[in-house]
């Protein structure tokens, strides 16, 4: 098992290198380098451009050198924890992203759990009572969740809670807690706000899981072992929950790697509408003001999250399914 994990971690390295190249390319995409943007911003606001500072920035990022040297410098700084400098905030990028990334991870994990908690029972029900009106009804509800754009659902929920519940649900904290140090009261306040993005992003994904579980379970229910178990007199509930369901929910674990980027996407756009302190709004404003070092770091980290998520899902899968541990990875 340890050897397997070690091998998987080694396999991550080329992927991470490729991701870093793409992130770097995005930093480079806007015309001109970020220094010219910075200088332009300074001169617009009427501030004096400090030549010495420019020199040091030039030196730090190797801006006068060929692109691959710039990339290597950027990557080396990245590994050492220096993610560059945000010109919009005039702060090191590392100071800006920490808490927001943590919040994104928290919300994605909770959303994933929420999606499972909703999708598993519904999926089982729809498969066992295939083509009943409840099956149709739940399918349609699930699909409506999938079809409603996240940002719109967020907007409507914002208005609804404001108009009818008399509370503001934007942000993740009530005003009095926003700057407060962490404590039980603040965590409780966070939980009171957290369900909204979780609900919004979660509804967009339950439909897919319901379909997966329903389809798999329908296949499993036709298999002979189910008939055997039934013939042996096992009660229907126990039978279904004990054997076919366990096989049918396997994809939940194996698809974590693909689901995470989708969840992060959904959270990014929901966060812009609800003004949550996650990566989304800051990434957007960084992109709009061409603060590319900040934006590139975000994109790099968000994709790394996925790679780590895939690793976790592979390890989980190897843990539940010994066949994978011993090399038979075909078909997955």
């Amino acid at each position, binding site marked *: 098992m340890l050897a397997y994990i070690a091998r998987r971690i080694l396999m991550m390295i080329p992927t991470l290198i490729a991701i870093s190249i793409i992130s770097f390319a995005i930093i480079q995409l806007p015309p001109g380098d970020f220094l010219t943007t910075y200088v332009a911003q300074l001169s617009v606001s009427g501030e004096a451009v400090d030549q010495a500072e420019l020199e040091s920035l030039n030196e730090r990022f190797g801006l006068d050198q060929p692109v691959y040297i710039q990339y290597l410098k950027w990557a080396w700084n990245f590994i050492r924890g220096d993610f560059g400098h945000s010109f919009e905030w005039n702060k090191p990028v590392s100071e800006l992203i920490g808490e927001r990334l943590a919040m994104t991870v928290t919300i994605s994990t909770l959303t994933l759990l929420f999606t499972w908690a909703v999708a598993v029972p519904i999926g089982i029900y729809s498969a066992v009572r295939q083509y009943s009106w409840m099956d149709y009804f739940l399918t349609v509800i699930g699909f409506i969740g999938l079809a409603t*754009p996240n940002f*719109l659902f967020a907007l409507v929920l914002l208005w609804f809670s404001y108009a009818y519940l008399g509370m503001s649900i934007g942000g993740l904290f009530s005003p009095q807690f926003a700057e407060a140090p962490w404590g039980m009261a603040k965590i409780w306040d966070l939980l009171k706000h957290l369900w909204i993005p979780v609900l919004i992003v979660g509804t967009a994904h339950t439909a897919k899981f319901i379909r997966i579980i329903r389809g798999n379970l329908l296949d499993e229910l036709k298999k002979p072992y189910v008939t055997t178990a039934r013939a042996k007199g096992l009660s229907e509930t126990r039978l279904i929950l004990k054997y076919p369901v366990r096989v049918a929910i396997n994809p939940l674990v194996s698809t974590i790697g693909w689901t995470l*980027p989708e969840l992060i*996407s959904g959270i*990014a*756009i929901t966060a812009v509408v609800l003004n949550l302190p996650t990566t989304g709004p800051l990434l957007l404003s960084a992109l709009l003001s061409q603060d590319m070092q900040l934006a590139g770091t975000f994109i790099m980290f*968000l*994709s790394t999250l996925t790679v780590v998520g895939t690793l976790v899902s592979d390890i989980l899968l190897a843990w539940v399914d010994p066949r994978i541990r011993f090399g038979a990875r075909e078909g997955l």
Partner: protein
Amino acid sequence: MNPEQERAEKYLNASTRQLVWWRYKKHTLAVIGLVLIGGLYFCSFFCEFLAPYDKDSRHFEFIYCAPSKVHIFDNEGRLRRPFVRAVNMDLDLVTQQIRYVELPDEIYPIRFLVRGDPYVFWGLWKSDLHLFGTDCPARIFLFGTDRMGRDMFSRCLYGSRISLSIGMVGVFLSLVLGLVLGGISGYYGGWPDGIIQRVVEVIRCFPSIPLWMGLSASMPPHWPALKVYFAITIILSLIGWTDLARMVRGKLISLREEEFVLAARFAGAGHARIIFRHLLPSFTSHIIVSVTLAIPHMILGETALSFLGIGLRPPITSLGVLLKEGQNITTIALYPWLLIPVSFVIMIVLAFNFVGDGLRDAVDPYSR
């Protein structure tokens, strides 16, 4: 022959296409979805004619006008042909909000095939004929008007044209990329397969919206609207092709060892002929399913980007651009009709998903 035998006979003699269609028809939601998609594409194809006004024509005396009420009973309760009433602008002195009050006596019937705003149909010929309309000074705004007094119904029709076409063009691009790259990696295997698979894996690691945001924000702001449109389409399809490539590769790997491929090779067929003549037709149906399910993703992606202000920009009107205007809480509270474009988005995405779902069940009519 008794009816049962007849049915069996009919089943055995049916072509694959018929079998697929019979099986598809059993899926009620899929049939509804197909009708909806057909209708929407029809409407967006003929939107210049179907829309009562031009998408950019401003009605200054009708700003933030609520959807017109279509009546069929007049003041005396008699049945009439559908009509609208003229409205009068009125200022609410407390809230400073504009309201429109219907004038009970001014009745304007809805007329069909009326002359109105001129347009050039598909850039080919000029006309000013619209399917329906009404006489001045009354106006017919089925979905109300926006902050510039533009008719939301017309704008929705024009918007769905752009959004639907982005879905189509984007999917076409990803289909080409997916077929070529997936084909190479599935048919040849070996090192090209290895490289393409790694590329697919890396691209799939990127969360789509942040990556789209990164790419589209770096578009130069001075680009003309049409160039932006194509750039956005390309950006959207950059991620979409990976799914198709995986599917094509998987199918090719399982098919290339079949006897009929070997037979074709012995008969002297080249690689291109084997791929396009023998392999591709055996999974066209799967491609169609994947494509159907990929289109709504593209449309939602475009809507999201435009909503954030880094996608399409006016004067190009897409559903996302329309929604950008309704993105604050005031709109929902005061002018809820500005959110009607959402129902188009939901309808399109739902319909495509239902059709894809039905097709998936139906494409393999010989399995039971």
